[in-house]
């Protein structure tokens, strides 16, 4: 057993930190994906 996470508070601190980073990454990635998907719809 690891000696780094002993409480629910610590667990949440760890997981929420990762989740926030993933969430921001998704928003950026999704923007790219959206443009990728609609490349030929744009009359640019």
């Amino acid at each position, binding site marked *: *057993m*690891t000696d*780094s*996470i*002993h*409480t*629910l*508070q*610590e*667990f*949440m*601190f*760890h997981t*929420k930190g990762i*989740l926030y980073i*993933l*969430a921001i990454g*998704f*928003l950026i990635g*999704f923007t790219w994906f*959206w443009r990728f998907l609609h490349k030929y719809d744009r009359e640019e």
Partner: protein
Amino acid sequence: MTVSRRRFLEWVAAAGVGTAAASSAKAAHGEFSGYPDSYGVLFDATLCLGCRSCEKACNEVNKLPAPGKPFTDLTVFDEKRRTDYRTFTVVNRYNDTGADKPVYRKIQCNHCLEPACASACFVGAFKKTPEGAVEYDASVCVGCRYCIIACPFNIPAYEYNEALTPRVMKCTLCLPRLREGKLPGCVEACPVEALTFGRRKDLIAIAHEKIRKYPGRYIDHIYGQHEMGGTSWMYLSGVPYTKIDLRTDLGTTPAPEFTSGALAMVPMVIGLWPVLLGGIYKITQRKEKIADAERRQEVANAIAATQGEADAKARAAAEKFQKEKERAVDMAVKKALADADKEKGKEGE
């Protein structure tokens, strides 16, 4: 803090397997058993005399400002007090408890195993230390006072009269002293050993032992063993806990669990809303495009129809004109022939 992925996965596996081997000091809910050797304090309400030595010691050890009334003044018991910006602990007297004499109870931070203040703080100013104390870091505190909202025991106080450097003020479990191997100030000062300091799991055993040895003396419940997921500061009492201002309706759910559901929705919204809204936007766009195309088609049809109508009209008119012309020519020819006949007839006579 960093947890390597391997250790994290080990932990997840162990959590499922290790319940049998887990230590007895378990948090009320689920897999988190807290720091194994953390300290705590056991308060025995049947022993407390209300001498206020603990209050005095706390004030001295923490170098807090002098209180309004001296610590020897026992008239303070005439009203219910609470912790404030210069008082980390108070003792209250309770008269109508059903016991034959007044009961005294010491109020201070309970150093919860899963502190609501730590869960609430958006700058992480509160930390549950391995020693057991819930430590406050004034160097990052923004002063939002959400911790005060969150604490179910109404413990944290605030320096409302400090204009530029207000701090949250609460019992520290004398963490600096603990790290030097000393006892908390209040525990050391108590003349009747109403306060017992030790490892939390030992204190629970001691408390159970006391209850077992003196069954008529104590309520068969250690307050703080499970409340709010367990606290490091626990209580024994001879009278119902509600009589000494310890709420029994707080439940055993650790504070972070109250908001974990709502927080769990955050990544769901972030992951799904853009998909949903983007999809609706595209559907709207498509509908508009189709509506646009339909409108254009209608206009084209209308134009074509009117053009066709106009053409038909023109053709009809042209035909009519042609017919009339032919008729007129016919009539003219007929007339000419008739005239010619007439002429012929006239000549014949």
